Each structure stands twice: as structure tokens, then as C-alpha cells.
């Protein structure tokens, strides 16, 4: 779907990337997952947050890629990083030690408390779809000060009950993370192609913002649980020309780079 802004049109995915990027502030130390989160984090760095520190689990600290990496360990991440450390070090001295402001994750499924599944659809021993698994996500969920999630909204992804809880977001609700001994604050924002969900005091995700032209009804229909809607729902500012230009430039340079065999 596309909508118009100041003469420009943009896709739902572009709106999602822009809305997520805006959440990252100057100087934020962000542990980045590959795919949608990496795209949004690099958009933030290219626009309003040039000093945002991007950390990839391959051990690259302060990576400044010009092209979006296909994997979390592309050479460009190491070549542009402030420091490259080993994998045990990135998880222990940097993540577990509490040096990460924001862990930025995707998932296959999310539940009402922001818990994530990246392991399996169906039963564990008799899976319908075997997904890649945990990767860095569980401990990003434990130790990052807060967790941002990006996920296209659909009843298959926003489920009443996860097939597998790979990563704890807000657990079983308020107080749950404290009981588990998790230092971080948990999921503080979920950015979708329809809008933005944020946790209430109970830890349950509530629709707080809609992208231009989207409705709360659409969001409810795309959610597998009975989605609560905030009393006042804000409307996302449409992407600015600067944001769209930067996002598309990222896409173009990445494609040109790939075409050149890098």
C-alpha cells in the first residue's frame, strides 16, 4: 500500500523503517539484528542520529556501513568499526555488562507481552517450520536496557500464544522480568507496518500510534489476540523527503554494491 505526502508516495515498509529509525536518538548504543532492524538503524545514522553507535553480534562495535550488510559479519562492518572484538567478548563484556541502550530485534512471532519466537512454528519435536533459532536474541532480551521490535503485523505473527518462547520480552507481564532476574526494561516499542504498540503498566502491548491512513480496526484484525487500543492514538508523521531520500539511497547503494559482486 502507498500513501501520499508532500507530493511523494511511500510504501508501508518505508513508513515502518522511518518510524523505527526515529526512535533511535543521537548517541544511542544499539545492538542491531540483521534485516529490518539493521535497515532502520542505518537510516537513523544517515539522518537525525549520525552518532548512534551500531553494534553487530559478530563483534563489530561502532560499525558505519555505507551499504546494508547481508549478514551480521560482512567485511564492511569490520572495516568501518571503531573496534572489532571476539564473539565471547561482545556477549560478555559489552552486552551482558549492561553497555547496550537498545536491542533492536525482529521475530517470526510475538505475543501480547512482547515475547518473541524465532525457533519453530508447530511443535518442537514435530515442527511445521523449523526457523533459524535463538542467535543473539535471548541475551539481548535479558541485558539490553530496552528492546525495540520491528515486525509486519498479521494474525500469523501477532499470536495469542507463541509456538516457542525464544526471547523474553515482558514475560508474563508486570514484575515478571524482575522475578527472572533480568536487568533490562524489556520491550518498550513494537513498530509495525500499521502503527506502533507500546506496553501499558501491565506489560501488555497497546496500540498507541497509527501510520497515516491506517485504522485501529486494521490493527485489530492483524492481531491474533484482542488488541487494546490507547484512549488517544497518535498519528505518525509521514516520512519527510529527507528520510525517504536517505532510505532509498541506502537501498540503491546496497543493490549497486551487490551488482558489483561485493
Amino acid at each position, binding site marked *: 500500500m502507498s500513501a501520499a505526502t508532500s507530493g511523494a508516495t511511500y510504501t508501508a515498509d518505508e513508513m515502518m523503517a522511518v518510524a523505527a529509525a526515529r526512535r533511535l536518538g543521537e548517541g544511542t548504543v544499539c545492538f542491531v539484528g540483521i534485516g529490518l532492524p539493521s535497515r532502520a538503524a542505518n537510516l537513523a545514522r544517515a539522518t537525525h542520529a549520525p552518532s548512534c553507535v551500531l553494534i553487530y553480534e559478530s563483534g563489530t562495535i561502532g560499525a558505519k556501513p555505507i551499504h546494508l550488510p547481508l549478514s551480521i*559479519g560482512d567485511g564492511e562492518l569490520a572495516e568501518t568499526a571503531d573496534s572489532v572484538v571476539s564473539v565471547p567478548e561482545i556477549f*560478555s563484556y559489552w552486552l*551482558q555488562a549492561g553497555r547496550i541502550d537498545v536491542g533492536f530485534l525482529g521475530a517470526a512471532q510475538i505475543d501480547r507481552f512482547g515475547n518473541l519466537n524465532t525457533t519453530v512454528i508447530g511443535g*518442537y519435536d514435530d515442527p511445521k517450520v523449523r526457523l533459524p533459532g535463538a*542467535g543473539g536474541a535471548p541475551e539481548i532480551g535479558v541485558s539490553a536496557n530496552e528492546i525495540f521490535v520491528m515486525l509486519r503485523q498479521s494474525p500469523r505473527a501477532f499470536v495469542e500464544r507463541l509456538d516457542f518462547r525464544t526471547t523474553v520480552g515482558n514475560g508474563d507481564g508486570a514484575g515478571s522480568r524482575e522475578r527472572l532476574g533480568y536487568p533490562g526494561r524489556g520491550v518498550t516499542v513494537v513498530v509495525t507496518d500499521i502503527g506502533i504498540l507500546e506496553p501499558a503498566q501491565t506489560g501488555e502491548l497497546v496500540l498507541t500510534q497509527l501510520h497515516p491512513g491506517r485504522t485501529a480496526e486494521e490493527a485489530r484484525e492483524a492481531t491474533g489476540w484482542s488488541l487494546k487500543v490507547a484512549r488517544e492514538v497518535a498519528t505518525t508523521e509521514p516520512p519527510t523527503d529527507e528520510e525517504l531520500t536517505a532510505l532509498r539511497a541506502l537501498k540503491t547503494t546496497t543493490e549497486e554494491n551487490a551488482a558489483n559482486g*561485493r
Partner: protein
Amino acid sequence: MARIVSLTDAVSELVEDGNVVALEGFTHLIPFAAGHELVRQGKRDLTLVRMTPDLIYDQLIGMGCARKLVFSWGGNPGVGSLHRFRDAVEHGWPAPLEIEEHSHAGMAAAYAAGAANLPFGMLRGYVGTDLVDHTRVAWVECPFTGERLAAVQAIRPDVGIVHAQQADEAGNVQLWGITGVQKETVLASKRSIVTVEEVVPELEHRPGGVVLPSWVVDAVAVAPGGAHPSYAAGYYHRDNAFYEAWEPISRDRDVFAEWMKRHVLETADVEEYRESIRGAGAPA
């Protein structure tokens, strides 16, 4: 002291059927040539350990070399699924595959413990996830603060295999760029093989480089291009097009088997492998 030998000899002398074998390299410096040699020599019943199985374990699993996989993220990075891995888990083809899965932080802690000759590694994690019911994890209490932490058993492979940029003639090894968990893998393993891009008269120390002295390595084998389609910083880039091309090759059992026959089983070593891929017009 490491001996400088052919990869064929290194694999045949140091890897036995039924061994626990770890081939590491985090996106960078993945030891593909050594993995292909395991396939050529028809190794069986291996317990394969690797944080990110990547295409090399997809190939080993699809060729029936593995009995068990210990891992923490099993996908084709940036592309999608590992279809041979999925086929083994979902349908038991070509053989049932036992899996023990962890998180990256858990595996990293387990490797570090293995390298340090400690029985277990510990971390803040696992609790509250469904991994607890499906993997080997236990809990320890800090004797000083009482904090409860997750404990993971040390990884102690029979054989650790990594790829590096260079060795010198005495078998000292240097790798640089993203160095992942390779140092821990070599130090945690009973025996180790390092494949290298080249042997140089003298190692020139690199910023951030990891040097493995000759006396902690058993065998060094020269395998130029041996990390392809992953990359070797300073030598060649990651072949992202190959990772994308692997998707349709690996999706179909017969196409996969034919590809492996043509490019791995019917080639003698890494140089013939690279030549056959170029000749096929396949991405190389």
C-alpha cells in the same frame, strides 16, 4: 608443533567417524574447504558443533555426515532457510538429526569455558525461555551474592577446525578481521586443524590479529580460497551471490545431491573445487 600437511592428510589423520567436530568462523573465515574434505572422505556419525551452521553444515548434514548438531542460529544469513538442515529436522532426510540448540551467548560461554579447561560456562540468560526444556542448561548460585545464573557445559570438541589468512613455515597462525570464536575453538579442542590462505616466511602482526602459536595447533593445511563463499579479509570478499544461489540449489534434494557430486565429490581439493564452480558458470 603444528605440522604443515595436505588437507586430505590432516582430515584423514585427525578426524574419526563419531567424533565431536567444531568448524568455526563467524560469517568470516568459514572453513569450507575443510568441510568439503569431510564430505569427500565420507565421515559419518559426527556431532557437528557450530554457532551458525551456515551453508557448510547444510552441505555436511545433507550429505549424511552428521548424527547430531549443536548450534545457536541455523539460517542462510540474509537469505532465509538452510533447507538441508530443515529437511533433516522436519523429515529426517537423509537421516534423523539430533539437535542441541543454544543461544549465541550460551555457546560463546561454553567455548570460553572449554578453552579455559573449566567444566562449565555461565551467563545471565536462558531462564524464562522455552530453550530450558529442550537443551542442556543448569543453574548455579553465586557464592558471593546469591545471584542465580545459567550454566552451560563446556564445549570440548575432539577436533576443532578453523580457517586463517596466514601461517608461517613453523606453523604459527594469524587471523584478523572478525575473529569470532576461533581462538576458543582451537584452545578448547583435543586436536586442531587450521587451513590457511597461504604460508608466508614471517607473520607480519596485524592490528586486532589473533596469533595461534604453532604448539597449540596440530595441523596446518594450505587451502587458498578455502573460506569461499564466506570471505577472508585482505584476500577476497564474501560471495553474497553464492549465498543467494544456494537457496534454489539446496531446496531440492536431487539438485543438491547433483551439485555436491559435481563440485565436491568429483573434485580432489579446493583448487579443483573452485575451478569446477567457475567452469559451471555458477557464482564463484
